[in-house]
């Protein structure tokens, strides 16, 4: 096989799950339409055929019930992968995923861990309206005891998901419906593990650090390309995981660039973006030439109309404006 094999983001997710299921019988997948329908978004296509109905498990539409069931199974020592068709639907499972999974180890004084992965589509972008467009990282990353990964490319999708499945703690794995068809180079081999808490520099630059994660990484790269034509050199850092958050990589970059823009597709109030900005202010207090600028989703419910939704989300134009402002090039 070619070393430059390109596959879709969804295929990368499937490879990660299938490889880990071949490796460890404790791993199984459950969720709505994951088996006979081949996955609502075809992420689990063909997995029923390979692993059978006892390991690729269709559930009824009962997020609270099946998420709680998977947590109980994890307490007994299995390693479930729970697919939420959309993270928006996880809200009805808030008690099990927030009150049980991340707290079990603590409440039991170290007796019962919860090695589980919750994964699915996060974020707006397809005119789905307010109820289906949640960026749950804003709310959920507030909870200690869970880990959170938000991959932006197929290779990271695979490497981070494999790490998530092998992790002994509960992992919230946030994918994006808008990226499932994105193609990228993913090397062959089943030992491609991307460690948590290690950001990835997507583009090197000297004038401004743009720290982001998930889908907005691509908007940031688009903005950096446009700004380069005007002589503004941006360093784009893909955080990859929100918990743990690799603040050190951003701090090192800001010590070089002296300005920073944080791009986060969740709402601004009490968000991963506000946390990162706060930490950069703290650790780079004497290095910054300007306060950390932030680009977020607008602080309103998600609209339906196409143009309004585009204006609602972070985009390259908004990032360019923020970088110009942060670098006094406005």
């Amino acid at each position, binding site marked *: 096989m070619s070393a430059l094999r390109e596959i879709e983001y969804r295929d990368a997710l499937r490879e990660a799950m299938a490889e880990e299921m071949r490796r460890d019988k404790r791993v199984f997948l459950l969720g709505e339409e994951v088996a006979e329908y081949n996955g609502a978004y075809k992420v689990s296509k063909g997995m029923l055929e390979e692993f059978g109905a006892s390991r690729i498990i269709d559930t009824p539409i009962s997020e609270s019930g099946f998420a709680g*069931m998977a947590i*109980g*199974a994890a307490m*007994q020592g299995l390693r479930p992968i729970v697919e939420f068709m959309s993270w928006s639907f996880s809200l009805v499972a808030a008690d*099990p995923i927030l009150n049980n999974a991340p707290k079990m180890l603590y409440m039991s004084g170290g007796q019962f861990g919860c090695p589980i992965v919750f994964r699915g589509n996060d974020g707006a972008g397809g005119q789905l309206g307010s109820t289906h467009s949640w960026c749950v990282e804003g709310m959920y990353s507030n909870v200690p*005891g869970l880990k959170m990964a938000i991959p932006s490319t197929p290779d990271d999708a695979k490497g981070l998901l494999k790490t998530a499945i092998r992790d002994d703690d509960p992992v919230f794995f946030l994918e994006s419906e808008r990226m499932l068809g994105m193609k990228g180079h993913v090397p062959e081999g089943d030992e491609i593990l991307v460690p948590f808490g290690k950001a990835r520099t997507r583009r090197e630059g000297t004038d401004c650090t743009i720290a982001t994660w998930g889908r907005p990484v691509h908007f940031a790269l688009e903005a950096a390309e446009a700004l380069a034509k005007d002589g503004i050199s941006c360093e784009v850092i893909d955080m990859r995981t929100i918990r743990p958050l690799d603040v050190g990589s951003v701090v090192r970059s800001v010590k070089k660039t002296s300005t920073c823009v944080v791009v986060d597709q969740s709402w601004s109030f009490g968000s991963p973006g506000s946390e990162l900005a706060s930490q950069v202010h703290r650790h780079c207090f004497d290095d910054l030439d300007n306060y950390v600028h932030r680009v977020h989703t607008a602080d309103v419910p998600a609209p339906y109309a196409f143009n309004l939704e585009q204006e609602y989300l972070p985009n390259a134009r908004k990032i360019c404006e923020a970088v110009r402002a942060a670098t006094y090039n406005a």
Partner: protein
Amino acid sequence: MNTMSTPSTDTRRLFDVHRGEAAPRIAPDRSVPPAATLKKWLRDMMLIREFEVRCMQAYQDKKIGGFCHVYIGQEAVAVGCVAAMKHEDPLVTAYRDHGHALARGMSARACMAEMFGRVDGCAKGKGGSMHMFDKPNNMFGGHGIVGAQTPLGLGLAFATKYEDEVMRGGKNTRVTLCFLGDGALNQGALHEAMNLAGLMNIPVVFVVENNGYSMGTSIHRGTTMAHDLKSKAIGYGIDAAVVEGMDVLETYHGMKAVIDDARARSRPWFIDLRCYRYKGHSMSDPRKYRTRDEEEAWEAGDPIGTLESFMLEKGMITADESKEMLKGVKAEVRDCVAFADASPVPADGELYTDVYMEPWGPYPGSSKPSMMGGGENTPSFRAIERSEDLL
């Protein structure tokens, strides 16, 4: 599957079977266990009651904080059900959990130290009264949110079945007992769990400890079909029965038959287990919503007195032996209170342990409680990283 059969004709006590589908007849074996077994049950019930009495005192003395829900009156439920289980069968319950923990085999010392918020508690003082966990005894908590434990119980049963059937290629060997109060009947989580259990043939027994009240709301004010709770399970295709909860022999016989059936067929059950809590919902409840007459009527059928009388009558214990037993129980509980009082509070460093299994950032990882031979990992408190640490 067998053909539909008629409900049990043995009506000495409440035990009647309803089924959503054709199921084999459940006929409890009512042979009396040996005296040594009954003595253990009697002692276990005495221990729970004495433990709870001392908890109430310690709560008044402000040695115990937070919420505290005592089990007095319901001792036969935990003891009878646990006696009908195997050690390897998981157990999970709600927040009125001290009785289950003790019946399952947790030491009174670890249980009381947990109530006191001390480092020798079952969870190093991090769980408290409502969150009792005991891994060596397959006790999966103590859960504080009403009904939250029902999908967890389903999952424990799913996992044991998965281990037996998928990983080992054998037959299901274990049953999970998932306890809930009658208040949880009205939580959506239970209904999702019952649907999944019925659908997926999960060997979980939902045991409703029906003491008639969810906090101060009588069951008739809180749920439909309160006169026939079995009807709630039948719609999910789950076999259901009423079991007596004030007579440990009856509880044991009924639950043994149910658990054996759940194990053999790998099917869920729903049990309406009739019992009564003598005390209030929690320590602050003056019980204004019920009459003293009602309480006295239930207390007349006290589970400890009922078993003691039965054993005296059958010559399985003497009055002197019973007195000695109670004396021993009182000494054990006095000891556990003294132990809890002398146990150190958790070190400040424990604040950051057990958040994650693996160390990162301010989290040093996880350690086990002293009852599991752990507790050696008590690192000093770590502040948020200094800037230099990030570079």
